[in-house]
């Protein structure tokens, strides 16, 4: 699985201010949280599909298609075991299949799938530096934002290093596929150690380079990257906030819940 899902397009969503995108992410969590019924969740699903089309994010959705399907299927199944309410259609010692448990379970699955879709859309349209800029605008300290950016940047480098070590060891005849799952996992330990030590060698130099450039002298350092707030960002902010208010209203007025007879 690639560590970057960002797709470089010039869509209106791509060009939104990072703070608006991070805010949209939180509003989606908020909106999904308040409603249980699949029908109430459906409009958000339709919105996701429209946004996926507008942002050209389908390749990422296609890549994760099995995750979406399994997420909905197994969440529905899990709640058939634990949500033992409503008149039973099938009542076995473990599974309690009722209309209520089906609707509740499917609703939970849909919720989780919509949350996954939100994160895929967010990562498809937002660069790492935009994400941290958005977090900093929302009050996350600069050093924390820096650590997040650096971790995002270093992870693919470590994966590449690990693959190089795997190839080198395989050329020498080391068999990574021998034994059961635990034995195979243990055979990867000699790969982790050189990657670990290589990372630590970088750490000292990186810290010195950062301090030489004055890292941490100011609480709010200057940046080459500037994200001006435009009228379209304000409009998007208002629309997103409206969605959040609408979904809370749906909950508040008693819609979106599952009726159990």
């Amino acid at each position, binding site marked *: 699985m690639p*560590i970057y899902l960002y797709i470089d397009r010039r869509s209106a969503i791509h060009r939104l201010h990072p703070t608006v995108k991070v805010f949209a992410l939180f509003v989606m969590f908020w909106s999904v949280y308040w409603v249980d019924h699949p029908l109430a969740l459906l409009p958000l699903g339709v919105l996701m599909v429209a946004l996926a089309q507008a942002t050209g994010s389908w390749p990422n959705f296609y890549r994760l298609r099995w995750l979406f399907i399994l997420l909905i299927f197994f*969440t529905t199944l*899990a709640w058939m075991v634990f949500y033992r*309410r409503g008149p039973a259609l099938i009542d076995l010692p473990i599974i309690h299949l009722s209309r209520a448990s089906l609707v509740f379970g499917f609703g939970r699955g849909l*919720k989780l799938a919509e949350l996954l879709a939100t994160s895929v859309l967010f990562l498809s349209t937002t660069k790492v530096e935009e994400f941290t800029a958005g977090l900093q605008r929302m009050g996350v300290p600069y050093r924390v934002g820096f650590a997040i950016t650096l971790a995002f940047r270093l992870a693919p480098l470590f994966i590449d290093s690990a693959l190089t070590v795997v190839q080198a060891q395989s050329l020498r005849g080391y068999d990574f596929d021998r034994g059961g799952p635990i034995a195979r996992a243990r055979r*990867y330990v*000699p790969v982790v150690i050189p990657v670990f*030590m290589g990372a*630590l060698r970088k750490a000292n130099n990186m810290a010195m380079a950062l301090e030489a450039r004055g890292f941490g002298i100011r609480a709010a350092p200057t940046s080459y990257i500037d994200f001006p707030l435009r009228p379209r960002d304000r409009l998007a902010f208002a629309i997103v906030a409206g969605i959040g208010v609408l979904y809370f209203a749906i909950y508040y007025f008693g819609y979106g819940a599952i009726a159990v007879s």
Partner: protein
Amino acid sequence: MHELRLMWRNTRMVVLCAISAALYAAVLVPFKVVPLIPGVTELRPANAIPIVCSFLFGPAAAWGSAIGNMIGDFFGGVGPGDIFGFVANLMYGYIPYKTWRIIADGQSPVMRTPANIAKYVAVCLAASVLCADLVGWGDNLLAFRPFSILGNIIIFNNMVSALVLSPLILYGVYPRVRAGRMLYTDMMPELAERPRATRIAGLTMLLAGEIGAWAMGNLVSTGYWMPSFLPASFAISPYDKAIAVTVSPLIFIALAGAWLM
């Protein structure tokens, strides 16, 4: 717990935090496609990394574990439950080195004496149970998934990695890092511990709180047992209100204990 705040002033610790997070994410993301229970959790050999990093980098590893897990979550769907996942992973990286300093201060975690092995298992179990409690409690509070699923799978998943993989990596890496004077005790010599009696009281509270939360979470979320003082309306699936009333105080006791350590 003050070192979790103080470490952000130290540039080397910030870099080590990013490296811990990147190493965690680098192993976590490729295994996102190998689910143990689809939609619930996946195979996580990466859970060996926070344990190893905790013994090496202390507070930097705690933040690294939280950030690394957040990066991983972006590829499996972020949601409101991930706030609990962030805190749970922070604790998963924080508890091992703190507990080790109380029960085996000055001893190397790679010494293979029976007493040391027993202490190592106890430390990993304490970290795994608190991590599982926090995620299970949070997800059940939000009524996403029952406590009894996540609260047990996470302990199993964490312990397999911590017992099968972490000792091997630690054995290869710890002596080298110590020789290179890159342990957290070398990086932050200014760290002062609380009096030993306070730390032991903290550890006792941590263990009582987390074991109590685990037992209560399992009993309540399966509907097997319910305290008699709870109103009947709380005793219905998905038991989110019952979990809020019964498990939350125990979680706060465990967190208060961690704070005193």
